[in-house]
């Protein structure tokens, strides 16, 4: 991709992201936020994070070698380590290094 196309792509990504970030503020600046919107705002973050975990793993194949083993092991390691230590940096560091090592093993 040449530079001008790359700059255009970055502008599109930044522009659309800002529109999405500001949309709710533009729509609900005045008056009370509708009940249904408040309800979604309250519970959607929980669902969205669950969806994002799946999104990150979307290209993992369970039927081709290495059968998703590095991903399953690394995700389990991150979850257990985080349940135990509650240290985001530690969980991410150990999980990522382990994953990179697992990829070399399999």
């Amino acid at each position, binding site marked *: 991709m040449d530079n001008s*196309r790359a700059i255009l792509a970055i502008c599109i990504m930044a522009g659309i*992201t800002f529109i999405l970030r500001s949309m709710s*503020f533009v729509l609900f600046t005045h008056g009370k936020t509708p009940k249904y919107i408040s309800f979604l705002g*309250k519970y959607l973050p929980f*669902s*969205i994070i669950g969806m994002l975990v799946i999104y990150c793993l979307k290209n993992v194949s369970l039927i081709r070698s290495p059968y998703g083993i590095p991903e399953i092991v690394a995700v389990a390691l991150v979850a257990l380590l985080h349940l135990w230590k509650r240290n985001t940096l530690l*969980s991410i560091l150990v*999980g990522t290094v382990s994953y990179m090592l697992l990829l070399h093993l399999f």
Partner: protein
Amino acid sequence: MNAEGWKRAFLKTLPVMAGYLVMGAGFGILFRVNGYGPVWALCMSVFLYAGSMQFVGISLLASGASAITVAVTTLLVQARHLFYGLSLVDRYKGAGFKKLYMIHAITDETYSLVCSTEAPEDVKPHAFYFAMSLLDHIYWIAGCVLGNLIGGFLTFDTTGLDFAMTALFVTIFVEQWQSTKEHRPALLGAILALVCLVLFGAENFLIPAMVAITLGLTALWKPLEKGVRSDG
């Protein structure tokens, strides 16, 4: 805001600093591997400022994606910001000129800090949220640019480095899971996303999943709100 206020904001954002330096460096290195230098990393981290979207952006640039593909992918990946905004409408009300920047600086991490942190008594809440937003942004920019610079000198195998993003979401998932007894929204999100992944495939499942999740939550509106009342 006084020095004490900034110090408090700094302490609150320390975990994010650690995470963003690592994640940002991961991005910076991957970006360099794909042929983009520090000025590119600086622009991405200042103007786009989005963890997952920047990683996705690398593959969009690398694959020479069309403007339409870039736009649709951004909408899909970033749609969750619609809902982050929803829960900050009231908190950011009346923040004045700072609000424009604070809206730009909403990320998964800053969002969760702002939602879970009360400003110290002698500090105006908006000034405190602004400080946390700015500090987080600075960590991210530093991580992206430094990673990009250092990645040029280090030649090691970076395969799998992007797992840092997966790990970040897993840690947030675990924290959200432990923050409440109500696990249905989290399970709903993961399960419906998995079902849509199987039905629609890796490239097309995000929007069906978001629609399904919104419908699923709507179906649970009454039971969820009832659960909150009986907890309280």
